[in-house]
């Protein structure tokens, strides 16, 4: 990749653009999900974002069983079985011809190429809402730093138009990528999943050493430079993986050691299971398919632990859906022991 590559031909692979996003930074935002991620977390909520290549998936509820996709595939990678249209992932090259042909959009190509200008034109459409809400654009993924050149140009152009920018990173990248991208970001959303290096390797496929180093690096950038302005840390709370007292305490103690005042928010994001269909569509098993949502009490309890670790307690909050009483038959079995708050469960928003 060359730094001087022409911005008009530079292309990024985008998984999805989500308008009126209210969960990825301040205000009303449009979130761009870039394709490709160096981690492979077992709980991943966006499994279609992991591969950097375009992929097709099949949404059964839309399919009218015309089978035109099967005829049009040059690799003969599609076939019909009892469960519907199947994609042979070995053969599929992600050329997208089936998706182009599909009359009902049951087959979708995940990962479209955009130039910076095309993408910016699409992203600024909600400017009025950004301005009224203090919102803007969040570039998420996948891992956006994998497409550092494109993302740098994208953020630079958006900042040039006075739009608030945020980047959501898993922290697995070179320092050079951070140094190039972050001067154009108002806010960094930084994921810290597990503090124990071995557990991290076990659940995500790589160690957290570089992630924690990069977190230090970002913290210094925030402290010493005009941009980025702010750093938010996010920890996914995954049942049986990241939801232990020790993990939350360990992350908190690490964060407490960073330069004071740099982190303005630490969000514990409760596991959600809405992505279960995504795995099916991609022809994959998901270890968490049967995992239940977190209990509200448990999230409160973990947030309390987080607040007791030495970080400014005011920056800790938890988000996401929790279990609604009575919507699971297996209550109790997956229920975590609740130490501080033995009262019965309240209905959360599901």
């Amino acid at each position, binding site marked *: 990749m060359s730094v001087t590559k022409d911005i008009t031909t530079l292309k990024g692979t985008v998984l999805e653009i*989500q*308008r*009126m996003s*209210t969960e990825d930074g301040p*205000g*009303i935002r449009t979130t761009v999900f870039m394709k490709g991620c160096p981690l492979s977390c077992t709980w991943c909520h966006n499994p279609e974002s992991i591969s950097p290549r375009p992929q097709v998936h099949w949404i059964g509820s*839309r399919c*009218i069983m*015309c089978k*035109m996709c099967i005829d049009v595939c040059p690799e003969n990678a599609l076939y019909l079985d009892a469960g519907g249209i199947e994609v042979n992932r070995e053969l599929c090259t992600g050329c997208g011809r089936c998706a182009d042909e599909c*009359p*009902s*959009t049951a087959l979708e190509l995940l990962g479209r190429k955009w130039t910076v200008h095309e993408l910016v034109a699409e992203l600024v*459409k*909600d400017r*009025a*809402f950004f*301005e*009224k*809400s*203090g*919102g803007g654009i969040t570039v998420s993924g996948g891992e956006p730093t994998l497409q550092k050149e494109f993302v740098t140009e994208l953020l630079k152009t958006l900042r040039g138009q006075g739009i608030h920018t945020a980047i959501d990173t898993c922290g697995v990248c070179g320092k050079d990528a951070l140094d190039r991208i972050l001067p154009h970001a108002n806010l960094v959303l930084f994921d810290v999943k597990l503090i124990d290096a071995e557990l991290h390797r076990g659940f995500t496929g790589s160690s957290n050493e570089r992630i924690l180093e990069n977190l230090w690096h970002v913290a210094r950038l925030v402290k010493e430079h005009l941009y980025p302005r702010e750093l938010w840390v996010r920890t996914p709370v995954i049942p049986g993986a990241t939801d232990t007292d020790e993990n939350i305490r360990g992350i908190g103690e690490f964060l407490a050691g960073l330069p004071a005042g740099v982190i303005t928010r630490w969000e514990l994001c409760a596991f959600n299971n809405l992505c279960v269909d995504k795995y099916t569509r991609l022809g994959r098993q998901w270890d968490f398919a049967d995992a239940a949502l977190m209990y509200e009490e448990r999230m409160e309890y973990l947030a309390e632990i987080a607040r007791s670790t030495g970080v400014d307690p005011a920056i800790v909050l938890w988000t996401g*859906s929790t279990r609604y009483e009575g919507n699971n038959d297996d209550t109790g079995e997956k229920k975590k022991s609740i130490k501080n708050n033995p009262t019965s469960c309240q*209905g959360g*928003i599901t």
Partner: protein
Amino acid sequence: MESSAKKAQEFIKQPKGLSDRVQWLREYYFDGNERAWNNENTSWTTGTPWDEQYDELTFYIVPETYALLKTLHSSYRMAARPVALREDFWKLSIPERRAWFNREVMVHYLPHEILPGDLIAGGRFNIQTSMCLTKKEQEKRNRMITGKKGSRARMKWFHDHGYGNAGATSGHLVPGHERALSLGWKGIHEELEEMYDDLTSSEKKGPKGAQLRAMMTAATMPGQVAKKYAEACRDQAVKVTDSMRREELLQMAKNLERVPWEPPKTFWEALQALWLNHMLIMADENYPGPGVSFGRIDQYLYPYWKYSIDTGMDREFGKEIMKCFWVHANTAYDSMIRTGNQGITAGFGQLLTISGRGKDGEDLSNDLTYAILEVIDEMSPILEPKPNVRLHQNTPDELLDRVVAMIESSQGAPFLLNFDERSMAGMMKEARMARFEHLINDDTVWDYAPVGCLENTMVGNDRSGTVDNNLNLLKAVELVLTGGRDMHPFTDPITGKTEKPTQDGPRTGDPRTFATWDEFWDAYVTQTRYIIKKIVDLYESSERIRACFNPTPYLSCMVKGCAESGRDITQGAAEISFTTLEAVTYATTVDSLLAVKYLVFDQEECTMDELIQALRDNWEGHQVLQARAKNRAPKYGRDDDGADEMARKVMELWTGETWKHRTLSTGRQFRPGMLSWNYWAGDGFIMAASPDGREKGQFLSNAICPSNGADINGPTANTNSVGKVLGGRARDNQGDWDGYNNMLPNGASHTITFNPSILKDPEHREKFKAFLRGYVENGGTALQINMLDPDMLRDAQKHPQDYRHLLVRVTGYNAYFTSIGKELQDEVIARVSHSRF
């Protein structure tokens, strides 16, 4: 069952903080049919054998009544009780007869009753009174209706063939309440006398003199009715044992002995006067409420509120009076009390408006604004009066906080939101188009108010026929595809006879020979011109009858322009007198054009012949093409500039054509708007399959909303599309008003349903407030916010008995979810889920 009932309890907003008095009145109202007292229609006759009461013209826009017209005519005629006529009755002009007859019924024939605990008098007003016509007049009117080319046959043909409907309809205006309060009827009567005295003697003998005399008679009605109620209060005061109630009744009697003849001083007097003045409009028009709107009550009632608060009225007591007023407004539905569930199809709309900007952009909210919001919150769910909150660039956070809190607790907004800047741009546009700049300009436009659901008008001098003409734009697409004939022959469901399709529209040629999209578009332009001319002609057939035979002299007293010109409001005498063409099926039409262009011309997925055959077959056997039409062709409502450009072209075309027309009999200019009431559901069964993939029998699109399921990019994209097709924002503030353009002066109904999680915590509530502020910039004129949960709705489908009070808001009108049909329930659920087609 029990868990379902519990669920209903949890989810559904309950009234709160009501006093025993209001609680009782509210519950009594909901007893409906079981009540000993009600406000059911009573019918009154001159006693002549040819007499008629029921005015079918005013129901031409309600297709559900077509099958009942003859029954209603005869049942009101048979039930009518005679009124003893004054000796010279038949020597009087029609408006004088009518003014006298209605006053006679209201003052001397209807009982005057006060419900237990009620603080507002004015109970029975649903009446069907004699048209007061001579035999010759009545016969002429009947001929104009039932003759071969009469209004009834024409109206029915128009509807049966999928064009829509039109009729000269009552209600639907904001009368001059502020003026009637500040002058009192005494003052209005004096003015009328002066004007009458100023007439020449030949004018006095002519129609002007007759009209003014009729209005003078009508102007004495409120005072006389009030006196009767004062007597009723005094009678009851003697009987009650509770001394506090006695004091109340005596105070009510005192109020009624002064107002509305004299101008009110206190808040109680003002509300009492307002109620009588309002209820007598419904009596005068024989029309129970739809669109008889109050305007900006927090503004014109504020001086009385302040006076009473300053002189010691307890604020809660002020709210208590309002709550009684609320219950009264709901009794309008008693006109249909025997159709069950309080006759609630919720098409009524005694709309009141609160908040909004002043001349210099300042927010005009005051303590009464907030008190009214509290009343709405504490009384809801309840259907009437329908509140509309005006938002604008300078709406204070305090008001938005209140609005958002109420949306959160009521499963959606218990009011419609109206957006000032975009609305004012539309009003300025109509001023320019119709040369009303002397009446609507920078100094006045901020004082506009919506009527009915969301239809913007000026106040006290404006009747703009806001629901009178409802046109299915999609018909023009069908006519292009057939070269000007119906796609399917019409079969009369009653006689079973099938008509042979005839060449109704212009011959725009065989579309299979069109080589380019432009040829198709040109044919569409021609057919659109034709259907607009067609509805204009249809409207004339009822408008001219009303103008000749159905004056409303009492209402005319409350609308500027009538006395001044000596003509009745039904003759187009309001200073601002438009009639509005409401386009129905907008998104379906746009999406159909987009689909034709995409499938036949751009992508060449099929030939025109194949497309037409698919539509004739109602898509049966053309599954792949239908799927392409639904899923691959571009759609309006996604903030896709290409698709929205087509939408804007369609908007420019039909609104441009609309401005070219005027009624012949009354000189009213047509203006454009978009309200679809429930036609988008019902007419879906009449209209042929459409190129956007919709089958015959599926719903059409609603008002300015994208087609069901098309808004896949969420609320901001949906909002942007709506703002764009209205005209968007102008550079350099050179818009219709400031930087805003708006091609629809009437405004447009827009509904967005949100997932309740958008309001889950203070941070998200701030985001939602910001969305509303963004809507001010980018969106339309009015927004209904729904906040629903599909699971709850499915539960309500299964256990309707537990969800009797669950209100859903579909077009800016409210309906009890359990009282609407399964299809519409499914539609609401589909919208909630934001699922695809």
